[in-house]
């Protein structure tokens, strides 16, 4: 037969083959579109939400100064201003504006959920030289600056410790205006700040939703007790045609700065440090969303494959008429492409909406673990949209390819006689491939993480092992139908319906195998997440029990993450130590520290009694008799490191390394390693007194107080709360609850992903049962004519669905044991550097099993209800 021309046939093949079916079965088509859309939406929304959460964190001065070319800080601790003239000389005549910045956080008393000040709302307080800031009007384009020279703003009260300028968004929230005053906690004390100016949203490019307070730099330095010290210097170039050329010269100047004294971040993007901080978290989140997409794609594959089967006779006719197999294959691929395009478009819209909801959950996590974020809404991001769209379309094409290949390979006579294997992809029949995947997974399991650049280690082999085991479980479970049917043989005697059910399972079709594979993957993924979270919680609880032994824990108000810059003054903690009710206390000093181009922490512990070392959960205990402050024979400071620090920097007990500090480079010797689930960036611990001296800062981040025997904890706490309104003072129990609350917030996103996975898998079950019934409609008609009641058919179909669900559940739970192990011992360890103890969440897994069974059963009953009325002549 003469082949139709491709150009003229494109529309014909699509309209006759695909569009006609879409019109005849709109619900089925809609379901397919929804599946693609859901997959794309999950992926897209997670990325958007995550982006919003990370971008919500800002170095707020960026808003005021425009984009800085670089940020210069000390390698560790704060930067003494007496070093700044040297910096100015270094740049010579280069027209750079150097803007010193001191950042603090102010907590707003009376906000937060529990009222103890722990989660009081925080606002960034930026200390800038407000007079010098005005010079920036000449750094910007000529057209802008004149308009911004507002008279009101110009009336700066130099060095004031109370006069502030605040953004409109914050003024609206606090219901204050120019001249009003309001209380905040700054440092560890309560201050009353007076509004001198409410910054107009356009003034100095401050965003409309940003909540921040501006103070003159010397004023904030005085309030915080940090005279002549700043956090960093922003380097700003003037705008204009010569900016690119100036940037080159600046870059050369920055590179020649001695690295032992200056840390330069010339990324040009204020959020980059936050991004690198949350890199591992984002990577894992993205992969979780990809997993959801994979489960969604499985459904597309299943649905398209079912469509091939339903249209076999049509394909047979086309083949018999002489249409080439490639034409048939192309027709299916075109259908997949259209499905992918439409579904992905829908997915982007849905994803954007989902992102608005997800952003809060992700922001909570980022808030709890890393930095304060002000994310409230996720903005559209074209790059992410393009990626999600491309993934959706490619995945739909990939999903269409296997059924298309099946369709085009079948012999015309065979397909016209409906002699099929009952659908499903041939791969699932290959038990040997399943075993091979299982073995490959075991092979990948012990391999180390892949180094991606200097700051990111990617557990690629862990993910490959998980993928292999998922495929293995999906394939091998399909081969358990026959053994299951044999095991349940005794049920055959009970009723004809059971006999019918078991006969179906004894010779399972490809669709049976595909359905159970989907369930196995979804349940496996969900349960393994449960195992990870439960193991994490168990390890954290154990760590808390070991580490948090004191009676009272004191910190400044607000969230205790790296971005909270408030500290407890030496005067305050010494005053507490002198309290007659106090037996002893331990002050924790902490500084963010650059080490090997990465951000980590250096911690100092200073005890006034008791055993400071007793609070560590050891992985490698230091030699007996060691105490913080000891030095080696050659003068190196003996330190302890956290497990994360060791893993990140490939250091272990016995190693020596050099750490830059404000007092020069320090030789350190590692004598012990401890578990720390508090931060993934790792920490080096040394004697607090030594740290204060070297870092020139005696303020503490927190204080753990042990009271004398017989002291009334409630009374002491109440008294101190009166005395120190700027401090959050919690009992041991309160702090433990708080840590666990943060921990749960951290995983709030994963629960949503888990639910989506299960939802998709159950939808797959329904789709598969529908298809099975349609395939068997003639058989059902015959059975009814032979006297099989509708109730019997309903029973047979629902039992079949339930048994498929049970098999999928069983396989999924088994898979989760292995996947959980990969997540805990491989992926989590390689990403975060934490070792967790493996714990099975019996209750949660039982609930999951019950939920899946219930959903499977209800779905099966629903389909069975529909199936009992199915007539032989009904086509779809």
């Amino acid at each position, binding site marked *: 037969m003469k082949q139709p021309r491709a150009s003229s046939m494109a529309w014909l093949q699509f309209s006759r083959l695909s569009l006609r079916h879409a019109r005849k079965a709109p619900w089925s088509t809609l379901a397919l579109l929804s599946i693609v859309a859901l997959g794309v939406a999950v992926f897209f929304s997670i990325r958007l939400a995550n982006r919003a959460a990370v971008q919500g964190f800002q170095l707020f001065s960026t808003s005021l100064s425009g984009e800085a070319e670089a940020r210069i800080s000390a390698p560790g601790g704060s930067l003494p*201003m*007496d070093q*700044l*003239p040297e910096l*100015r000389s270094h*740049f*010579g*005549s*280069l*027209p*750079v*504006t*150097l803007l*010193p910045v001191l950042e603090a956080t102010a907590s707003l008393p009376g906000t937060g959920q529990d009222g103890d000040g722990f989660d009081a709302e925080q606002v960034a307080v930026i200390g800038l*030289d407000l*007079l*010098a800031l*005005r*010079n920036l*009007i*000449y*750094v910007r384009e000529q057209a802008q*600056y*004149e308009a911004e*020279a507002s*008279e009101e703003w*110009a*009336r*700066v*009260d*130099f*060095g004031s410790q109370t006069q502030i300028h605040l953004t409109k968004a914050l003024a609206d929230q606090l219901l204050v205006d120019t001249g009003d005053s309001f209380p905040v906690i700054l440092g560890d004390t309560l201050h009353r700040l007076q509004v001198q100016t409410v910054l107009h949203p356009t003034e100095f490019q401050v965003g409309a939703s940003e909540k921040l307070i501006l103070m003159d*730099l*010397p004023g904030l330095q005085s309030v915080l007790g940090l*005279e*002549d010290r700043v956090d960093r210097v922003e380097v700003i*170039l*003037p*705008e*204009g*045609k*010569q*900016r690119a*050329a*100036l940037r080159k010269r600046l870059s050369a100047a920055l590179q020649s700065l001695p690295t032992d004294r200056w840390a330069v971040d010339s990324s040009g993007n204020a959020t980059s440090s936050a991004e690198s901080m949350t890199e591992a978290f984002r990577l894992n989140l993205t992969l979780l969303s990809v997993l959801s997409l994979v489960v969604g794609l499985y459904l597309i594959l299943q649905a398209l494959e079912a469509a091939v089967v339903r249209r076999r006779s049509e394909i047979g006719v086309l083949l018999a008429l002489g249409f080439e197999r490639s034409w048939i294959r192309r027709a299916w691929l075109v259908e997949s492409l259209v499905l992918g395009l439409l579904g992905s478009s829908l997915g982007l819209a849905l994803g954007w909406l989902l992102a608005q909801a997800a952003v809060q959950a992700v922001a909570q996590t980022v808030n709890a673990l890393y930095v304060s974020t002000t994310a409230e809404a996720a903005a559209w991001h074209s790059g992410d949209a393009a990626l999600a769209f491309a993934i959706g379309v490619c995945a739909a094409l990939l999903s269409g390819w296997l059924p298309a290949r099946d369709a085009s390979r079948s012999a015309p006579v065979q397909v016209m006689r409906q002699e099929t294997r009952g659908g499903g992809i041939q791969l699932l029949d290959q038990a040997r491939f399943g075993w091979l995947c299982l073995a490959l997974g075991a092979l990948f399991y012990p391999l180390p993480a892949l180094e991606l650049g200097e700051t990111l280690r990617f557990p690629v082999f862990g993910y490959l092992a998980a993928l292999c085991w998922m495929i293995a479980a999906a394939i091998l479970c399909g081969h358990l139908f026959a053994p299951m049917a044999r095991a349940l043989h005794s049920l055959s005697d009970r009723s004809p319906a059971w006999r019918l059910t078991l006969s179906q399972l004894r010779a399972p079709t490809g669709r049976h195998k595909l359905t159970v594979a989907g369930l196995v993957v979804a349940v496996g993924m969900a349960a393994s997440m449960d195992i990870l979270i439960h193991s994490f919680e168990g390890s954290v609880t154990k760590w808390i029990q070991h580490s948090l032994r004191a009676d009272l824990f004191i910190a400044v108000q607000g969230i205790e993450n790296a971005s909270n810059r408030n500290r407890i003054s030496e005067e305050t903690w010494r005053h507490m130590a002198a309290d007659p009710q106090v037996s002893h206390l331990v002050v924790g000093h902490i500084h963010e520290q650059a080490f090997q181009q990465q951000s980590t922490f250096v911690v100092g512990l200073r005890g006034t009694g008791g055993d400071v070392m007793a609070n560590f959960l050891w992985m490698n205990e230091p030699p007996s008799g060691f105490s913080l402050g000891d030095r080696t024979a050659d003068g190196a400071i003996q330190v302890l490191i956290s497990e994360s620090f060791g893993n990140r920097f490939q250091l272990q007990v016995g190693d020596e390394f050099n750490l830059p500090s404000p007092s020069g480079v320090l030789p350190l010797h590692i004598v012990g390693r401890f578990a720390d689930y508090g931060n993934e960036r790792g920490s080096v611990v040394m004697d607090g007194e030594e740290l204060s001296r070297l870092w020139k800062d005696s303020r503490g981040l927190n204080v753990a107080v042990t009271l004398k025997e017989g002291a009334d904890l409630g009374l002491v706490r109440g008294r101190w709360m009166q005395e120190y309104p700027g401090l959050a003072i919690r009992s041991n129990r309160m702090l433990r609850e708080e840590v666990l609350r943060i921990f749960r917030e951290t995983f709030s996103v994963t629960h949503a992903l888990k639910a989506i996975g299960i939802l998709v898998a159950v939808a797959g079950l329904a789709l598969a049962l529908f298809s099975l019934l349609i395939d068997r409609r003639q058989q059902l008609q015959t059975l009814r004519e032979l006297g099989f009641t509708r109730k019997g058919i309903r029973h047979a179909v629902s039992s079949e669905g339930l048994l498929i669900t049970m098999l999928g559940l069983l396989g999924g739970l088994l898979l989760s044991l292995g996947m959980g192990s990969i997540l805990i011992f491989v992926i989590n360890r390689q990403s975060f550097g934490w070792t967790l103890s493996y714990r099975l969440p019996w209750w949660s897994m039982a609930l999951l099993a019950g939920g899946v069974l219930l959903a499977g059963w209800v779905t099966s009953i629903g389909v069975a209800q529909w199936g009992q009325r199915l007539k032989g002549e009904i086509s779809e």
Partner: protein
Amino acid sequence: MKWMHILSFCFALCACAEDIARTKEGFPIPTAKPQFQFPRDHGSHPEYRIEWWYITGQFRDEQQGRYGFQATFFRYALNPEGRSRKDALGQDQLYMAHMAITDVSSQRFLYEERLNRDGWDAHASAKDLDVRNGNWSLKRIEKENMHLLASVRDAVEMDFMLSPAKPKVLFGDAGLSRKGEAPSAASWYITFPRLQLSGTLRLDGEERKVRGEAWMDHEISSSQLDKHQVGWDWISVRFKDQTEMMIYQLRDKEGKSDPYSTLAWIDREGKVTHMGPDQFSWTGKGTWKSEKTGAEYPIDVELTGSRPDGRPFRFKVRPLMRAQELSGALGGIAYWEGACEILEENEVIGEAYMELTGYSESLGESLQ
């Protein structure tokens, strides 16, 4: 402390002296003949309220491109104790600076202002000439040679050596220059009337060698003007015959010339001859109105009078560009300061820099 107001005061008004020696705020007033000690007196005098180092000049590049420039460093004391440099961001001294360049061939005028507190990024040494504000600096390097580093926005960088072609001169009574009736309206006035300029100009990314001449004033006071004075017109002229002239005309609220207005001639040997307002006249012949500030400046000027030898003169001041206004976005005072040339009988006989202040509406208001 409202700095905008302070700066207005700084440049214009409010002598408020209660006694001869000090202003009401306690700042010392230049009175008796000064006993200068150089190079120390080229440096800062932080106990006095106001001080500036003011360089204006003209130069050409190797392609004969013609330019005018202004580099001004101001210091203003916020308290009479005259403390200098204690903290990284001190509260006692303010430093303002203005940089401007006039590219005559392309008729482009660029300027930039800067205001900083005394401290890590702005300072003036009290021991010698060493003043800086951000990346701008002026420093004595040897003898009385000076090194100027300056920039204007992204387009201009200047690296100039300035060497006196003539010795410095002291205006007024051996350096004590009276500006008004009030005892406090006086300054110490030291000038290098002709500096040889050489160095490099980086303009729009292109570096070019330049040569030219400049004028530098160094004035120290605690209150420059009298209460009734609202502004001044000032011009410095370097004639081709190696003599110089400087005029300041102080104007009152009615626009009349103040009796303390002065013309100073400097002969080839550096000898200064002062003349009072009855011996010269400054007449505006044409104006230029600023779109930015609304101020109307009499930039076409005719100067008449007599020379020290009694010969009359009639000079025409011709600006090399009309729009040479600094809008005062930071300092709050707009003024016109621009490169000009001097003509006599339609022949160019010298280069000049002219300054016209007190013509913007905002300045008039702030002077009240």
